């Protein structure tokens, strides 16, 4: 997810953040994406 993608998603939700808040939210959002990827890899493993 690029910074531009994230800005577009926030805009669709009507969320406006100043630069500092955006930087913190983007960093946290990338972490959440990585958690999603971790789960995808887990589910791809056989039981």
């Amino acid at each position, binding site marked *: *997810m690029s910074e531009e993608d*994230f800005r577009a*998603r*926030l805009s*669709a*939700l*009507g*969320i*406006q*953040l100043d630069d*500092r*808040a955006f*930087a*913190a*939210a983007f960093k*946290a*959002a*990338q972490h*959440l*994406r990585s*958690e*999603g990827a*971790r*789960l*995808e890899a*887990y*589910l791809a493993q056989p*039981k």
Partner: protein
Amino acid sequence: MTDPADLSIPEAAAALREGRLTSRALTEASLDRIAKRNDALHAFTHVNPDALAEADRADAVLAQGGGGAFCGIPIGVKDLIDVAGQPATSGSAVLAGRIADCDAAAVARLRAQGAVFLGKLATYEFAMDGPDMNRPDPPARNPWSPSHITGGSSSGAAAAVAGGMVRLALGTDTGGSIRSPAAYCGCVGLKPSYDRVSRAGIFPLSPALDHVGPLAATVEEAALALDAMTENPAAWRPASAKLSHGAAGLRIGYARSWFAGDPQVSPALIRAMDDAAAQLSMLAARITETDLPEYALFEAAGSVILHGEALESHRALMRDGMSLYGRPVLRSLAMAAAIDSKDLSRARLAQARLTEELIAAMAPFDLLLTATALTPALPFSDIDGESPLWTPMRTIPFNVTGQPALSLPIGFDGGLPLGMQLIGRVGDEDLVCAAGNAFERATDHSVQRPPL
């Protein structure tokens, strides 16, 4: 003579029934503590002006030999949980001025037993993120050290119990919000099995993970409170049923590897956990170290579900009240924009699979034992107002699996409390509380009081 505010709930209930104490005197004792300590601790955000009138009504019922187990007992309630006629803002300017029309289901059950509702307790805004230093209501402070956080989001509940204002408070727990403040403040927190206590009348954070439960001074009081709050008592064994049974013979899997190798863990926490395991062993529990499924997977599933569902819970409010949200909550909601419905579906699949795996890993045991948080409470000076507050905990797996989990004190690190968790299978609150009560009575951790 013991200050009535220091009587345990069973002691106070007996004194009330025998006419040695009135609910008015007991409620006045709690109100006196609040008057003396709340300016420093900021636990209560609202004190009920009708509390003494409620106490008088309880006294009238008691005088006629009536009333339930909590008749005349003063209780505090987290401001995420509705209490009829009292403010219900979820700690947010978005809901400023909102007064609850009716009681949340858990509150109604306690009211039916005659409980006295003293007021509303501080919460992190909408139970999200961490303390926000920029809100009009200052965050609750740790009774053991006011320069440290309480943990949250049931921040006021833990401060009120540990600060001696009440013996019992109601909280909510979506990723550890009952258990982590209980551990940081040195009191007991009991997250029940999923759906054991109704979530009706509670502002939702993540309906798949939300739980309502007690924070209390002792395991016995938490167990009695849970029994009073249980939505369909006939469907569950009472949490208090085996309090006198002790821990003997219970098979306890000690999930030491879930915390001991973590680079963030406090060495004092490892020592206190090992001492607690040894103490349970001396109480004739059978302790065996065990490896559980990878902790990080539970945190991943819990985080994705929590943030995805939180955004859904807030969509309507955000349309009109966006400018009123605090920065930490807005940042947390913004994070959720990074995930979509496919991520949420995957996380729910992972939740089901992880639950199966954890229950399978628990097969040789009656209970699990692990840490609540890996460190003592952080100082407020660590909060920069921009970065998400990160406190390493081991609580969210049991929101994911829906199992009951009890946090109770096990000692101190630098003057700040530490806590452990005992975890059972769904419905096994009686075993969890039996082991917790035995441990508590064999040690002096839970009788320690902060120097207020």
